[in-house]
């Protein structure tokens, strides 16, 4: 029972809202973790502020009887930043690109109540290009992927995706297999 309950933290079918019958998720993509590292570091630094104040002014605060109040304010400060950290992580986690054997779904999460979902059927894919810009993107192997389409929305751009070259190959493979009617076999892990 407990093992079955804990399995949701280990394995997932990557199913999503609006998934068609027998539709198989080939890739689930998110922005590179490096992109979330900067805001998280800033929040982490802000969390150190009450600790620094406590270390410096501990004797002053206890002498004037402000220690209890200081600890409470610090507690509220940590609560606020805990919320801010997980707000950022939520936006990061929900901002996904799903590549299935039939279509590409780009879920662009801009805020908790602000989301744009675009869908592109694989037979409309015309051209895929990648763009890696700068030292960090080159070293950490992430970049933008642009998908040219035959649809009214001419371009799909997926930002800061890890291993863009590999993803480009997968998208082209899916598009080709859709045209030829042969199921795509994706080799190797992302």
């Amino acid at each position: 029972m407990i093992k079955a309950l804990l399995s949701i933290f280990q394995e997932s079918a990557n199913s999503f809202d609006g998934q068609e019958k027998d539709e198989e998720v080939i890739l689930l993509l998110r922005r590179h973790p490096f992109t979330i590292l900067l805001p998280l570091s800033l929040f982490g630094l802000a969390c150190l502020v009450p600790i620094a104040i406590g270390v410096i002014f501990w004797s002053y605060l206890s002498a004037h009887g402000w220690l209890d109040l200081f600890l409470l304010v610090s507690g509220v400060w940590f609560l606020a930043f805990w919320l801010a950290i997980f707000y950022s992580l939520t936006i990061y986690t929900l901002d996904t690109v799903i590549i299935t054997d039939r279509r590409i779904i780009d879920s662009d999460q801009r805020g908790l109540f602000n989301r744009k979902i675009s869908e592109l059927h694989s037979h409309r894919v015309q051209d895929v290009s990648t763009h890696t810009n700068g030292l960090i993107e080159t070293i950490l192997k992430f970049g933008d992927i642009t998908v040219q389409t035959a649809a009214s929305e001419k371009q799909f751009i997926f930002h800061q995706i890890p291993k863009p070259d590999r993803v480009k190959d997968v998208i082209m493979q899916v598009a080709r297999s859709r045209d030829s009617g042969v199921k795509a076999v994706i080799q190797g892990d992302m």
Partner: protein
Amino acid sequence: MSTLEIIFNILAALIFLIYWGATFIILYHLTRFGIGVQPKKFAAVFLFGSVVLSGAAIILFMNLDIKPLLLLISR
């Protein structure tokens, strides 16, 4: 209990309610719209941390003697 004390307690309760309201919204988004394993892990860690931190905040609030603070404000 003085009026200032009541206001202080209501304010603390309000902050607590707002915090748990926001926590619910984030947890709902992670579990309802999250795809894959990662959002579930984040939700579990977030819930655990929220319970621990708000428990600590409640204990600190209970231990707080607000009379000197209220005296300072009312001066």
